């Protein structure tokens, strides 16, 4: 089942790209990836994770208890990796087009 990737969902997928992470790890990674612009709340994070798992883009990869706190890890599936690659290519193409467009015009001044 394909899923429309919002910016937050894209960032969560990106956070899982290099290694499995638990919920708090994903929040920290997303904050880093977005330069501090996106701060995921737990409710938003788990809504996204639920949808990513339902779409087959991510899956649980085990759980550990650290200092009495349960940490369940999530990892990207091959389908999730494909979706991430496709979305990154789309964003790259969009950025390229935007650069081309912005390079040819001057900044509007105040009359």
């Amino acid at each position, binding site marked *: 089942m394909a899923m429309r990737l919002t910016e937050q969902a894209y960032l969560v997928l990106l956070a899982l790209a290099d290694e499995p992470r638990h*919920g708090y790890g994903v929040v920290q990674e997303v904050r880093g990836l977005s330069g501090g612009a996106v701060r995921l*709340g737990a*409710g938003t994070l788990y809504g996204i994770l639920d949808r990513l798992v339902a779409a087959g883009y991510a899956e649980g990869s085990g759980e550990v208890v650290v200092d*009495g*706190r*349960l940490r369940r890890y999530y990892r990207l599936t091959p389908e999730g990796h494909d979706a991430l690659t496709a979305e990154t290519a789309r964003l790259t193409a969009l950025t390229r087009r935007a650069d081309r467009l912005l390079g040819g015009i001057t900044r509007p001044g105040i009359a």
Partner: protein
Amino acid sequence: MGPGVDPAFARSVGRWLRAYPRRWRATRSDEITAVLADLAPAGARRLDLRSGLGLLGAGWATRWREHPPLLAYLGYVALELRLDPRYRDWARDDIEGPWFVVRRWLVAFAAVGAIAWLPVLGGDPPPVGLLTWWAPAMLLGIAALGGHWRTRMVARQLVVQPGERVTPSGRIPGVVARPRIEARSWLAAARVVALTVLALCAVVLATAPHRAGVVLDRAEVQLTSVPMSAGARALGFGLAALGVLAGVALARWAVGTRLRTWRPVPQPYRWVVPLGPHGRTRLAAGIGGGALLALAVPELAALLAFPLATVAAGALPVLAATRRVVAAGGTGAVSGVDVVRALRRQADRADTAVDGYLPAADWLRVGTVVPRPGDPVLADPAPGGAVERRR
């Protein structure tokens, strides 16, 4: 939750998490509580409002996302139509919820009410009197049939059919141990019933202006209405006082001995369960239905108040003594039926297995398609499940 999360913080999170479906909370609440504890400032004892509202929104979004479409939902509620198997987990939450039988009652109430009020459109007077009978009848229906409705919906909604995928909520018909209510729960429920009956009888005996009377006229038995005299009221309260005395005597000289000397037999096919939310709902419905019935037929209620007050008053000391013995571990009676058998000096009998439903995931892995007749069978049984155990 583990020792790493402050219990007060975990409780605070637990309150906000009620926005999520029960099945979601059962599997994820520890995990999300740990994440929230990681995100919260050190030493936080409650979840901040912003995070709480975030959970509230996300929880309801989860409910909305997993809810069946409106038409399918209406078919499920009004006509008990089977939902698509992808909503099986939702259906299980609904069927196991404490409000399931109440909602079932409300649907029946609304349907009958709508039919009964149709003639009003033609100018007939509204049938207000219907409420007097319908409400107690339906409450007593919940008490008597609540378990049956639930079982019927499990059979219709949760049993996996050939060709469908096994989900955690999927069920298969099977033979299961017989559930019996655990002794302490049973005694607590019996005490609530006895106290309520006694209170209702006291009110009826003190205030009822008339009571039903029985007149024998040759071969005919006639019910008449007679005024409640002061003597009759005094007789009612006197009988209740006698009941208390008899109950105290029984509690003192018989209860302890009977419970301690009672010998249970092995019960391999018994499953001792607490009363639980479903049992409490049915108990409350039964009490409410009885009270409304007393309002509907006040004169008959006044007549029945005499014996009922006596029995309820006598039961209270017996129940209190029984509770003391059970709490002290002085008896082999562990379920309500054991207590009744012990008090009645009946020998114990072994329960037999009964028809019921088992988790389908104990048979096949979650996600496996249930084989159709003629398919090669069970290539991938659940690890440690029923099939593997049998091999």
